[in-house]
């Protein structure tokens, strides 16, 4: 059996994946992944969600190739302004004679950029606060959790608004503001996980070997909290997209001429009644993408946390 070739028949590959005695860590992991995928793919809505997210990523990568026109430079202002959807302009054109389809395609880059950066900033903050708080306990725990609760007491969009007001409008500041308002739930989850890990034997063993507290937290507690955080972050992505789009709609996110979807809806508001497509198309993009993340998150939760699935 050693070194079973991957080019075997599908049945053989399945047997290799599902083998109860994996020969390597790698095989065991692939097997777990395969089982998870089987459970996941039984849920058609979740697969649709995954498809939408993959489509978003592909759009963002290949925006140059897919978009037929420039997202920033407009066409002829006399003849190509506010044209309805047609074969040349799939989603119509806006007030500056720009092709809305191209702008929506390029806008996927901004959306992805926001989501990824917020996740990269907020997750480590939440992870650090939660694990330190849960592992140390005592007054550190009390203080850190009170601070977390205070941030949770503000509605997310309103707090983000206040931060952007102080920092000034712009996509970077919007990302910082959303990240600042996103970490508290992650801290809560990380703390709950840490409380369960804290008293296990392997932590006691590491402690007896003389490991320092930072080393235990960073090397032994944090890695075990990451997986449950990933699910939560995926579930949050739709919320992040909607908050970013809301900030953009209010003129506080990405600044013109960046093709940010929320800001594009705000432009379309001026032409709502006679040129509905200017507002409708970018809004539809926001809706489809956040629906995709919600479906994906729901499916992931059902697979990774069977208790929550009802």
């Amino acid at each position, binding site marked *: 059996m050693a070194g079973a070739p991957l080019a075997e028949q599908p049945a053989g590959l399945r047997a290799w994946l599902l083998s109860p005695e994996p020969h390597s860590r790698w095989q065991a992991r692939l097997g777990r992944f395969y089982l998870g995928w089987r459970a996941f793919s039984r849920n058609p809505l979740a697969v649709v969600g995954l498809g939408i997210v993959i489509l978003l990523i592909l759009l963002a990568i290949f925006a140059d190739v897919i978009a037929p026109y420039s997202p920033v430079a407009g066409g002829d202002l006399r003849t190509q302004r506010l044209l309805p959807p047609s074969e040349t302009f799939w989603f119509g054109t806006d007030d500056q004679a720009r092709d809305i389809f191209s702008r929506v395609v390029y806008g996927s880059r901004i959306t992805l950029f926001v989501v990824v950066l917020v996740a990269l900033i907020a997750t480590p903050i939440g992870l650090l606060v939660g694990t330190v708080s849960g592992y140390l306990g005592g007054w550190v725990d009390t203080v850190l959790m*009170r*601070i977390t*609760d*205070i*941030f949770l*007491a*503000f*509605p*997310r*969009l*309103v*707090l983000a*608004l*206040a*931060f*952007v*007001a*102080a*920092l000034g409008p712009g996509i970077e500041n919007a990302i910082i503001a959303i990240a600042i308002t996103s970490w508290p739930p992650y801290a809560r989850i990380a703390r709950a996980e840490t409380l369960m890990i804290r008293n296990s034997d392997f932590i006691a063993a590491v402690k007896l070997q003389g490991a320092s507290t930072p080393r235990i937290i960073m090397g032994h507690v944090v890695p075990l909290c990451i997986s449950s955080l990933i699910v939560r972050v995926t579930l949050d992505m*739709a919320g992040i997209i*909607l908050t970013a*789009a*809301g900030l953009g*709609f*209010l*003129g*506080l996110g990405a600044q013109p001429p960046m093709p940010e979807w*929320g800001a594009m*809806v705000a432009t*379309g*508001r001026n032409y*709502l*009644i006679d040129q*509905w497509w200017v*507002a*409708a198309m970018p*809004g*539809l993009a*926001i*809706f489809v993408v*956040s*629906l995709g*993340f*919600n*479906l994906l998150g*729901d499916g992931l939760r059902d697979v990774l946390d069977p208790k929550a699935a*009802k």
Partner: protein
Amino acid sequence: MVSAVMNGGGGHGSALRSFLKKVAQFVIVLATTLLGLVAVTFFIGRVVPIDPVIAVVGDRAPAHVYERVRTELGLDRPLIEQFVIYVKKAATGDFGNSVLTTNPVMTDIINVFPATLELATLGTLIGVLIGIPLGVLAAVKRGTLIDQFVRVLGLVGYSVPIFWLGLMGLLLFYAKLGWVAGPGRIDVTYSYLYTPVTGIVLLDTAMQGQWDAFWDAVSHVILPACLLGYFSLAYISRMTRSFMLNELAQEYVIAARVKGLSEMRVIWRHALRNAAVPLVTVIALSYANLLEGSVLTETVFAWPGLGQYITNSLQNADMNAVLGGTLVIGTVFVLLNLVSDLLYRLLDPRTR
């Protein structure tokens, strides 16, 4: 364990003492949370901007104006002293004056708050009246087409940008079909027919017998209220479904069925009544969420409430108003959580 039993047997004196202790804990938690809220807005207003003085006077102000404003704002004093002053003022509801309206921020907020309250209350009502029956239905008919429908309805509610749905609603029901009135609370022609007493247009017009004005207000409020109601419904129906599934699996439901009670009675009188206890928390939370949703909805519908006040102030760099509004919304959020917590204790005998 032993001490708890002894306390329990100690009669009224110790029961009162433990009650008072709980109240004291409650008050301490509430006080620290509110202090924290003030600290956050203080931080946003004084620490985050590169220079709060420039935020007030602009970057072309002469040096003496700059210095005067700096002293007026108290920025020449130590940060901790500034914070103490800020807390003292906030405790009395003094958030300074709005640059835009020149009124005290608190007066402005009191003026605009009823409009938001009106919208959020109607939205929650719609969410409760439709969301709970839908959630119950989905739980009872679990796995059927109805269940799937409610699930998709909820998912769409979680995913759709509220400001976009509002615009599309205006386009369809106002511009194309003409079924409802457009942005604003009431037509100008009607706005002189009644005197504002409560600030809630529907109440004011009805109490003064101005029925034409009342119906005009209704046709203005119906679209934004339905919009907020949909978001509330998405959340409430999902939670109702999960609570009901929990209850329907309990033994008392089987017992009730064995006794020969009708299915209607089992579901609506027995199971729903038990699910109602956690639902109270959910409704309070959804009410609080609508305050947040109102920021974008009010902007779309030109609804003169707290949300529009905050966004207008934002656009004019009116920090006092923005932070005052943020603090008020945060406080309402905390108080709503508190109320739901108290109601929970009141309704569920097990928590006593």
